[in-house]
């Protein structure tokens, strides 16, 4: 295809503009990484901090030896693994009957699921429910209430419905029951959509903080995001949170410690991101399908 001069000029400008947009998306993370690796004096210097000129790992040592951060890491890992497993199992079990045409009251059941996307009881009734079920200060409070979401159920249901009906018919002739059809036939064929749901849920759990703020009051059960929140946002008390009482080491600016805590928190996501992002993108396409 032959391009006019205007089109060529637009093409070149477009490439530059998009490059700038991408850099703008990346810069806050580069800045944080750079500050986290800086000495206190270097972090206080005015500038863009693309690279630290004076490197120090002291803030990482302080963050990684902080017992709260270690506890938070373990608790976040637990909720992520447990929560993702529960969501995957429950979503499949919920999606399967809704995908079957012979299911009685299918339309009404689907409506019950979809309606939860449009309306909910809100913060207070949800809190009272979790409290009355005795889940406060347990990992169940962080994994069970959000276990089945309408969005996940709908995309898995749609995927199941796209599988050929003849597969089910021949399995039935071979004497397979509903559970066998779901676990031995549907699930192996549904790996892409299950990977998408699993990755979404896992990232969601890693990032979740609000439920922990409401439901977890015991610091031994608290998640990483909440500790990060205390260090970063409640900056006046940050030194206490980190357990720094020896004033001789307070010379390390809080900025480098904040930055190091942020990097430690986002590292797992950054590490898996390049490998899993295609599944995320696939998921949004599946979710975008109407009906």
């Amino acid at each position: 295809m032959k391009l006019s001069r205007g089109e060529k000029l637009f093409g070149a400008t477009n490439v530059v503009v998009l490059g700038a947009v991408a850099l703008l998306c990346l810069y806050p993370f580069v800045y944080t990484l750079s500050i986290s690796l800086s000495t206190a004096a270097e972090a206080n210097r005015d500038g863009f901090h693309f690279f630290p000129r004076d490197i120090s790992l002291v803030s990482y040592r302080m963050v990684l030896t902080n017992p709260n951060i270690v506890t938070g890491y373990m608790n976040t890992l637990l909720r992520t693994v447990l929560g993702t497993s529960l969501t995957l199992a429950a979503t499949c079990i919920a999606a399967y009957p809704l995908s079957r045409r012979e299911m009685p009251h299918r339309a009404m059941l689907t409506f019950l699921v979809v309606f939860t996307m449009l309306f909910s009881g809100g913060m207070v009734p949800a809190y009272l429910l979790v409290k009355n079920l005795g889940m406060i200060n347990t990992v169940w409070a962080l994994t069970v209430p959000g276990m089945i979401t309408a969005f996940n159920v709908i995309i898995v249901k749609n995927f199941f419905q796209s599988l050929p009906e003849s597969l089910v018919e021949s399995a039935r002739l071979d004497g397979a029951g509903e559970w066998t059809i779901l676990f031995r036939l549907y699930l192996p064929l549904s790996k892409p959509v299950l990977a998408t749901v699993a990755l979404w849920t896992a990232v969601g759990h890693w990032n979740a903080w609000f439920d922990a703020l409401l439901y977890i009051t015991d610091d031994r059960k608290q998640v990483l995001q909440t500790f990060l929140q205390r260090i970063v946002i409640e900056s006046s008390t940050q030194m206490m949170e980190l357990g720094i009482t020896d004033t001789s080491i307070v010379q390390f600016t809080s900025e480098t410690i904040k930055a190091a805590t942020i990097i430690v928190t986002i590292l797992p996501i950054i590490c898996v991101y390049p490998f899993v992002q295609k599944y995320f993108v696939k998921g949004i396409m599946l979710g975008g399908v109407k009906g």
Partner: protein
Amino acid sequence: MALPVLVYIIIFHYVPMVGLVIAFKDYVMSDGVFGSAWVGWANFARLFGSNDFPVAIRNTLTISLLRLTFGFFAPVVLALLLNEVRQLGYKRSIQTLTYLPHFFSWVILGGIFLMIFGSGGPINGVVKLLGAKPVNFLSDDVWFITILVVTGIWQGAGWGAIIYLASLSGISPQLYEAATIDGANRWRQTLHITIPCLVPTMITLFILSLGGILTAGFDQIYNLYNPMVYDVADIVDTYVLRRMMGLDLSLATAAGMFKGVVGLVLVVGSNVAARKLSKGEQGVW
């Protein structure tokens, strides 16, 4: 198989809806949800008679409308620009970077932006370089709202563009071939083919964002705000949380219920309107 799922959905999604009755009660924890005394609409009267709830609604609407005005088209523009890139590897790299911010919580992003807009951050570094005094971006009303809107677009535009890119790849190439034969240049093609083909997706997303008009981004605001900007940044959700922490559970529930009902009415209403206007062709369902 459907039974355990049904039980779960009823317990964790519908029982809380029944719990909304405490919006019409004077909830006392020791009496329980059903033992507490009925008070009719008194909690709602108290809510709208107070000073801070109407302010919270006004703030929520202001922030939401600013986000819609400046943010709604950002993913569309980004998708259109990405669609014009011929180098596929470059396009993919740009995309990967633009939706990176979507993968982090506002605890993380809030922490980063508090540093970047803080007194020692790079933005104030530029301000100082220009010879001006450092600005307290995060405690100034106008700057704070600007930061909310801009960082919100920064986080969401790349992710939002994915769905438009999917719609773009679904447009039949024949339309473009026909337009080329008719002598339409790329700009004309964009104007008369590409953009009209995106309109149904835009309507769907617009309907969904209308439902969230009283939401205004709780995670972001909670992790960025401070008492200095409460007068413009206190939204319905932060109001509910503060009332809840203050143990005024009936009032908090009433405020949350008001938000939920308005959201429901808006989504259903705008969907009906979109279907009527397009004679049944458009709408979310």
